[in-house]
């Protein structure tokens, strides 16, 4: 029993040690703090997507909509309403979550490819609004003229505006809270009903689980954390443009989740790390970096269908 627990805890310990010390070693391996922050933010988005994909068995191809709503909500709050980073993040997350909660009932009865298609369609609606509504969203040029602001906590002020490390740790704290909450939910009776739906929807239904209601809840939870990630993404870049809402962004989240391993809790984070690092490295060498990421993705799917983490896990087990 004791050995088993150590085995189970080992990945958590490794992940947290790496994340906590990232600003100290990243520059020695050719990275920079903003890159690490990107990994954590996109990792959060991919893990949020995976709450729905890997643990409820529902594939969304429209999560960029809520990522983008979180980003625009956050950016527009700072730009137009109040100069408060904290409040802006809350507004962004709430806006994305409410949109998901409203759209949810319209789509949760659909399954498989139909669900995926309709989530894309809804996502594109928000994309075109952001794209066309120049005066408010900045249109194709994106929303500029604002930056993230220092965090006033009453007793002290954290300068996340100029200190990249401080911002990284703020992101990491929110990442820890979010993933902690997701892990906690997944280990609860509610979480087990979601896994039951993933495993066999018909059986779940005939156990007395109102499947549509549970899928709606999983969808809203997933979109809530994706919205938060979107808000953080806007803060990281001090900028947001309609591409954050575009359907290819949704595809990137799916790629990250599948690449890392959608049946493992940390898989999507690993996927996001691989994706971000590959993009950073390849895009400095070639304009066609996307084809290389695509090729890598195809290889992983063909040879390691359970993703990079799934493969490592199998190695360790055998």
């Amino acid at each position, binding site marked *: 029993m004791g050995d088993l627990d150590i085995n189970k805890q080992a990945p958590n310990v490794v992940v947290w040690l790496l994340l906590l010390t990232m600003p100290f070693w990243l520059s020695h391996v050719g990275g920079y703090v903003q890159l690490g922050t990107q990994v954590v933010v996109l990792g959060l988005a991919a893990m949020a997507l995976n709450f729905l994909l890997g643990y409820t068995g529902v594939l969304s191809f429209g999560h960029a909509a809520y990522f983008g709503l979180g980003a625009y909500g956050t950016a527009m709050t700072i730009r137009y309403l109040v100069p408060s980073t904290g409040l802006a993040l809350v507004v962004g997350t709430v806006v994305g979550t409410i949109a998901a909660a409203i759209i949810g009932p319209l789509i949760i009865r659909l399954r498989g490819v139909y669900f995926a298609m309709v989530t894309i369609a809804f996502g594109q609606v928000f994309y075109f609004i952001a794209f066309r509504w120049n005066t408010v969203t900045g249109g194709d040029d994106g929303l500029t003229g604002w930056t993230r602001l220092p965090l006033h906590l009453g007793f002290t002020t954290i300068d996340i505006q100029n200190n990249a490390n401080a911002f990284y740790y703020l992101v990491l704290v929110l990442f820890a809270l979010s993933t902690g909450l997701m892990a*906690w939910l997944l280990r609860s009776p509610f979480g087990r009903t979601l896994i039951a739906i993933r495993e*066999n929807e018909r059986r779940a239904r005939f156990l007395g689980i109102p499947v549509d209601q549970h899928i709606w809840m999983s969808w809203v939870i997933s979109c809530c954390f994706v919205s938060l990630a979107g808000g953080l993404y806007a803060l990281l870049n001090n900028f947001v443009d309609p591409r954050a809402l575009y359907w290819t962004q949704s595809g990137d989240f799916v790629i990250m989740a599948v690449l890392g391993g959608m049946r493992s809790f940390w898989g999507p984070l690993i996927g996001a790390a691989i994706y971000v690092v590959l993009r950073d490295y390849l895009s400095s060498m070639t304009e066609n970096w996307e084809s290389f990421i695509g090729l890598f993705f195809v290889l992983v799917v063909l040879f390691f269908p359970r993703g990079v983490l799934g493969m490592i896990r199998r190695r360790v087990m055998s």
Partner: protein
Amino acid sequence: MSLLRVENVTKQFGSLVAVNNVSMTVEQGELRAVIGPNGAGKTTFFNTISGFLKPTSGQIIFNDEDITSLLPARRVWRGVARTFQITEVFPELSVRENLRTAVEVTAGYRLSPWLSGDADEEIRARVTELMDMSGLVDKADRLVGELAHGDQRATEIMMALALKPRLLLLDEPTAGMGDQETYDITQLIRKLHHDQKLTIVLIEHDMRVVFHLADRIMVLAEGKVLAEGAPKDIAANEAVQAAYLGKAA
């Protein structure tokens, strides 16, 4: 008072009448078998009772309540549980996790983000009880998808039982099983019927199982009721022999 009354149920798919004006009354504590040749409409009939399909016409009265248009989950809450012809379990979860999910949902925890220590204890105890009853204890931590067909079926039946049903619907519980497995499942069903006084309706092809278990038998052919009665009457019924038993034997 009868537990289940199916009244003049018809189910049409386009021009095909799969179930044609079938009525059935099942008493509390009864074990009823539904038999009939392939394509007789047995599973369709079953699906209208469990809520998988809505009948074209007719009524289903359970415990004096009209449940004809209730969703499956709501029928489960009222005490109707079922298994499927092709076993429906959670293949990538262990036997324990399969049963645990069913027990938790039944105990009303399906939306709970956490469990108290006491509640957790109670659920574990109930899961262990269910595994003891079915001889699945030594396979508790195996993935159900890796188990033999008979054990998967036993898991499915115990999941249905975890729901504390008042009526258990079993769709061909011994389909695709060897002799030993058939015997084991038959004994399990017999135990549930005798020891727990559970009301059971089952569809079955294996006549040894049917005549061993059933209190009453209903025979369907081409969507209609061909005969209904005690096993010995059914065995002696000429129309049944012609339509079904003759072919099977």
